[in-house]
């Protein structure tokens, strides 16, 4: 019964790596690896291709391409087992290989994150269950950064809100449960949103089931593991559905804009090599041997291994230029200092030792300058500012009809569909739906502009609750309170719009959207930064003068009323352990010793966007400065962006046929 270990994301990555290699080792000899496309990037976060080769992987195939051949006797499938579609595809490929059969294949399937009953059933029906070795690869959280854990479930958003398939919720519960088993119970689970509530209920339920003592659970982690954690303070669950407008807005941080313009997947972005120059020859980054990547793209790793990037990523793009300048000048001067004549050999040696660092920094500086220039091309364009203007006006609560002409024009100018849909959805979200007439006009304009197949897109958006008709209209009952966010109230009370934003020395999270503070993060602030948020209410100048003593208020207090205005269920559960165990633990930890640096886990169900991550990091930094020793770890089902959110509904086929 040692004190719970602090939450360390590196351990999670290490464990994931070990588990995978161990599984691969279990298959003797060379093997061909077949994996789902979406897993390729995920895997690259955990283990290098070269390491996989050391463990006998000969060739890589994508499950979707259905092209695995008989070049090796051993064939290993790595796939998520929750969807019947995947299972059927695997069964078919196994049968195909067996029929072609010159080789007597050995098949293995590693299900991520668990072996499902359905997969068993389907494999059995396909007559292959007896022919394959099946193992589980319990991959839940994958760290994207020190403070960012993602489950990398690409379909989580569309599953949860479009198809209403709660698989992601269940998997999230499992993942969090594992976290609890390692680090102890979250002493408090607090959150917002209907699905979030379901997740919290699942967690409570699973806890009681663990206490009831499932053999598979009690193995390893004794039931004593389920006492409240001493290293984690609370779990905050935010349902994506609670705050859709935030993702619909254009993210204005550096990382956010890279995501908007080039797209980021698994900490990598692919950029045309004409922009950043070709990949240096000696270092081919992680690239699966798919050969499907067009040669002209270059992959750029975006993570904390690049120190320059980690200083830039969360800054508002407006200041990235000057930051880059500063770095360039510093590099220049320190590089030039080598010419200074009077150098002792010791100094010289020191300088040479630093050289590789300079070179790396230089290279990264070059890349990011090129990227920033490319982004500036976008942000300077007339269309970008038009879009931004519409967004800001809508978010600030201007009369939406005043923006209709702009949107109309953007449609006529054949802007990419996701961009236009984001604007329409944003309007619908903040003003509780469009009027019938307006909605039909826009729908018609979308269909005319982008094709009639988007009838399906529009109905998908309606299901998602992104593009709806205003309640109280013909034949529609007025919305019940709690099912729709009252934006005008929330905007005022939670100060979503901050007029004066200091982008270079940000003083509020609103800097990530240049004036709009993401609601989701404000909700987190309701829990973590009560004083600050309250001080925003009183005039900002006097706030510092009269700081109320650190109130003992926990949970949502004193913001319950505002939070109620936001859509979805609100909950706040405390988890306590058995009294005896708790006391024993307290005795072990000594008094107050564990208070020093506790972790708050913020879980975004349905995805989080990069600007929100930046905002949360800002909150975490503030907490640290205030001397409240909390550490914030962000966890999510997957990273999302506005294009991805509306993209969940977009119909990809056209009437043009194949």
């Amino acid at each position, binding site marked *: 019964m040692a004190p719970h270990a602090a939450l360390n994301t590196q351990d999670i990555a290490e464990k994931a790596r070990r588990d995978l290699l161990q599984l691969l080792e279990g298959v003797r000899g060379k093997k061909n690896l077949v994996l789902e496309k979406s897993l390729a990037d995920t895997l690259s976060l955990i283990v290098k291709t070269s390491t996989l080769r050391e463990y006998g992987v000969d060739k890589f195939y994508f499950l979707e391409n259905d092209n695995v051949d008989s070049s090796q006797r051993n064939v290993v499938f790595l796939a998520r087992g*929750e969807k019947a579609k995947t299972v059927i595809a695997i069964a078919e490929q196994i049968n195909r290989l067996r029929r072609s059969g010159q080789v007597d294949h050995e098949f293995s399937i590693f299900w991520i994150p668990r072996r499902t009953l*359905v997969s068993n059933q389907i494999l059995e029906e396909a007559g292959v269950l007896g022919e394959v070795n099946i193992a589980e690869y319990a991959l839940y959280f994958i760290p994207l950064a020190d403070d960012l854990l993602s489950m990398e479930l690409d379909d989580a958003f569309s599953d949860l809100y479009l198809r209403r398939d*709660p698989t992601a919720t*269940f998997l999230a519960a499992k993942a969090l449960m594992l976290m609890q088993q390692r680090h102890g119970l979250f002493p408090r689970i607090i959150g917002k949103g209907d699905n979030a509530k379901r997740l919290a209920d699942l967690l409570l339920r699973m806890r009681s*089931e663990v206490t009831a003592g499932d053999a598979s659970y009690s193995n390893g982690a004794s039931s004593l593991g389920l006492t409240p954690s001493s290293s984690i303070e609370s779990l905050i669950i935010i349902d994506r559905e609670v705050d859709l407008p935030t993702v619909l807005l254009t993210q204005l941080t550096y990382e956010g804009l890279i995501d908007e313009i080039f797209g980021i997947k698994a900490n990598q972005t692919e950029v045309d090599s004409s922009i950043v120059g070709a990949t240096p020859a000696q270092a081919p980054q992680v690239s699966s041997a798919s050969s499907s990547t067009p040669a002209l793209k270059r992959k750029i790793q975006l993570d904390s291994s690049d120190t320059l990037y980690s200083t830039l990523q969360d800054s508002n793009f407006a200041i990235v230029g000057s930051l880059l300048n500063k770095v360039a000048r510093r590099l220049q001067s320190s590089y030039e200092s080598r010419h200074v004549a009077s150098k002792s050999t010791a100094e010289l040696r020191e300088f040479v030792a630093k050289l590789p660092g300079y070179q790396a920094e230089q290279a990264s500086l070059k890349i990011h300058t090129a990227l920033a220039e490319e982004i500036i091309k976008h942000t300077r364009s007339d269309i970008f500012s038009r879009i931004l203007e519409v967004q800001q006006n809508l978010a600030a609560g201007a009369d939406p009809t005043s923006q209709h002409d702009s949107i*109309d*024009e953007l449609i006529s100018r054949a802007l990419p569909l996701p961009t236009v849909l984001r604007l329409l959805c944003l309007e619908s979200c903040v003003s509780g739906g469009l009027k019938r007439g307006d909605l039909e006009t826009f729908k018609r304009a979308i269909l005319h502009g982008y094709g009639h197949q988007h009838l*399906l897109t529009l109905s998908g958006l309606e299901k998602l609750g992104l593009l709806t008709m205003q309640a109280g209209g013909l034949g529609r009952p007025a919305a019940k309170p709690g099912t729709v966010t009252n934006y005008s109230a929330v905007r005022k009370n939670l100060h979503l719009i901050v007029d004066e934003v200091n982008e270079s020395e940000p003083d509020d999270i609103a800097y990530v959207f240049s004036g709009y503070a993401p609601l989701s993060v404000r909700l987190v602030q309701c829990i973590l930064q009560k004083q600050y948020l309250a001080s925003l209410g009183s005039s900002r100048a006097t706030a510092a003068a009269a700081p109320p003593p650190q109130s003992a208020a926990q949970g949502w207090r004193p913001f319950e009323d505002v939070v109620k205005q936001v859509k979805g269920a609100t909950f706040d559960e405390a988890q306590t352990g058995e009294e005896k165990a708790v006391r024993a633990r307290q005795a072990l930890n000594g008094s107050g010793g564990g208070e020093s640096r506790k972790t708050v886990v913020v879980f975004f169900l349905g995805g989080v966007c990069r600007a929100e991550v930046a905002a949360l990091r800002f909150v975490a930094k503030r907490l640290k400065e205030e001397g409240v020793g909390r550490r914030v770890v962000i966890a999510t089902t997957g990273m999302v962006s506005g294009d991805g959110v509306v993209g969940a509904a977009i119909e990809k086929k056209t009437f*043009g046929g194949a």
Partner: protein
Amino acid sequence: MAKPTADWEKVGTRFYRKVQLYTAVFDQDLELENYLVAGAPYSGALALHRDEEKVHAYRGARAAKPSIDVYSCAGKLIRRINWEKGSIKGLGWSEDEKLLVVTEDGTVRCYYDLQGDFVPFTLGHGAEEHGVKACRFWSNGFVALLNNNHLISVARYDEPRPKLLAIPPEGEIHSWTLIPPAYTLSRSVEVLLSTDKTIYVIDASDSEDRNYSEGPFVHMSVSPNGKLVALYTNNGKLWVVGSDFQETLNEYDSRSKTMPKDMHWCGNNAVALAWEDEIHLVTQGAATKYYYDGWVHLIPDVDGIRVLTNDVCEFLQRVPDVTEETFRIGSTSPASILLDAVDQLERKSPKADDNIQLIRPNLSEAVDACVKAAGHEFSIHWQKQLLKAASFGKSVLDLYNSDEFVEMCETLRVLNAARFYEIGLPLSYEQYQRLTPEKLIERLINRHEYLLALRISEYLRLPSDRIYVNWASQKVRQSTEDEESICRLIVQKLNNKPGVSFEEIARSAYDEGRVRLATELLNYEPRAGKQVPLLLSMKEDTIALDKAIESGDTDLVYHVLLHLKKKLPLAPFFRTINSRPMAMALVESSAIDQDRELLKDLYYQDDRRLDGSNLLLSEALAQEHPQARLDKIKLASRLLQDSKENAFQLKMLDETARLLRMQEHFDKDLHSDASPAGMRTSGPSFVGLSINDTLFELLKSSHVKRALKVQSEFKVPEKTYWWVRLRALVSARHWNELEEVGKARKSPIGWEPFFNEVLGAGNTRLASTFVPKCTGLSPRERVEMWVKCGMVGKAGEEALKAKDVECLRELREKATGSTLSEIDKMIAQLEPRRR
């Protein structure tokens, strides 16, 4: 009390001891020589099966019935399994005491408890045709040898996958054995075959000749740690070689004319050769012989050999180092002196203290040795004596960590309890360490020794849920009481016990046909998910569905749904899921990929017209043929007819069909015009484009009339039309037409876009013509526009009109040549008054 050294024998340089475990093991009538005997590892149960090939005395019809008898080591019959399944070619045990029975036709039964419950599987790979000849077992798998010399391995019993090993050479096999996978380089099982004069090593992919010429070998045996192989030649010589066959380590000539019937390793250091009533223990080229009155069987274990006769069960092992050190006659080790000191103490002799003083510097070492030696001792008397010595020694020491002592006391209590003849598990200390206490408890459960199992698990602070569950399951199976009282009894006993799985108990009740009891018991199961499979097999489908939903595990829900879908007709199936939103969502989301017909039926039954129509629309998208597409769209719109709230949708569908038809016409008219041969590839097809894109393409290729027709047909707003036209003309660089358009007095989208787009395409001249038309803008903006076209002079005029000196000054910077002077003039026009 007999000295512990009484049954020691020196073989080579080391002592071996024979510990008598039990006496009067088997009935005197039992003719051991006629039986196949297999013993489970770690002193587990014995399985006896009468060898049919041998004649035996007739003992009445009942006794003649073939059976497999499972005994404890003490000879207590645990279970008699009737056997009518044909000739047994392999009888063996796994590490966790599963009994494996392999018959000639290649069927295997895995008896997973000692109570006759089994899982069958077949070997395949030709076992049925050729017949199984023999089997060799290791801790969790076995290899079967067929009559055609093929070898089939099974490496696990929970999901058995018989695999054919590499094909060995033809010829008679004199003897064979295997090296367990844990000890081979390839980590897969390797089989050693003695054919002709040589030995073949066979694994999953290779068959390799080891090039021996001294064969044939009549016996081969691999040491428990897999490092050594003992070979017995047909001329009575015993060889010990490394398992890599690199070197011969030892040789021994038995000088025996008769072949031994058996050869096994005794630990890792000695080999035991068994004749009918004689055992030779060979090590380091020396041998000692043991003689018996009757037939002996050898049962090898990890650290020794169990010797079985009708009368006794003995354990033959090398004397452990600490034991030897402590008890060897004439030993002067500290432990031995400490032991003596206790003896003296009991006799109240002062020598006790002398002894202590003598070993004072090594006292803690002596205590450790005594504790360890106690562990290796089978006799309770000597265990006590040794522990006493340890305790005495440690009382003299100032500082001693007693953990090991305490632990050993606990262990010995457990071991003695297990060794008691009614239980019959004569575990040695080393075996117990390897087996682990948890597995011991499992073995006790299999023997239905619940009380002892409970006591031990309480004593060792181990989870006891398995014991309770097993007990209850047994109760359910065997009790003749009425169901209610059984349930009450079980619940009474098991409530508040953590970890108890009522589901499992309920399952055994159900298997036993006690459905009501099963249902009742299931209610006590706290884990909803756990209940589902049983509920399904109990045909409580809706309850199963509800429980699955309750658990939140979508996989379980899917599982139930798949089951239901197969079982129920559509209507009741839909009724079932209708009231359960999660089930409904899951059905929908899986059917969209797999079973669209089901979805259509579902929407129809549910009267969800919009969804149904959307489904048809997405099918239309998947159609290749235009007519098929239109048909689907028609179907989609028919679904929505006469429903008011879908009027818009209906209108749009109608539009879709009209557009598609129109586009087809365009394709036919425009593309086949150009090339009569029907080369439809001459231009991009219109079909599939949106209305705006259609307009764009038409205008681009100057089909204005058709474009206007599209505009009026679909009521494209004027603004949109202008924008599309602008973009189309610019992209096709139809400057003249743009100029024409520019002659219009008013534009619904203003003239600024014209300026921007044209300028963006690089035509500054044309762009500039739009500047004066942008009357809505401020002069400053217009100046800017002129400058963008490179017409600073015009810009100056504009500024002059607005009387903006400031602006003119700025322009002056940009101006060159004649324009410069012009600007100067303009500035002068505005300035003079100030001068």
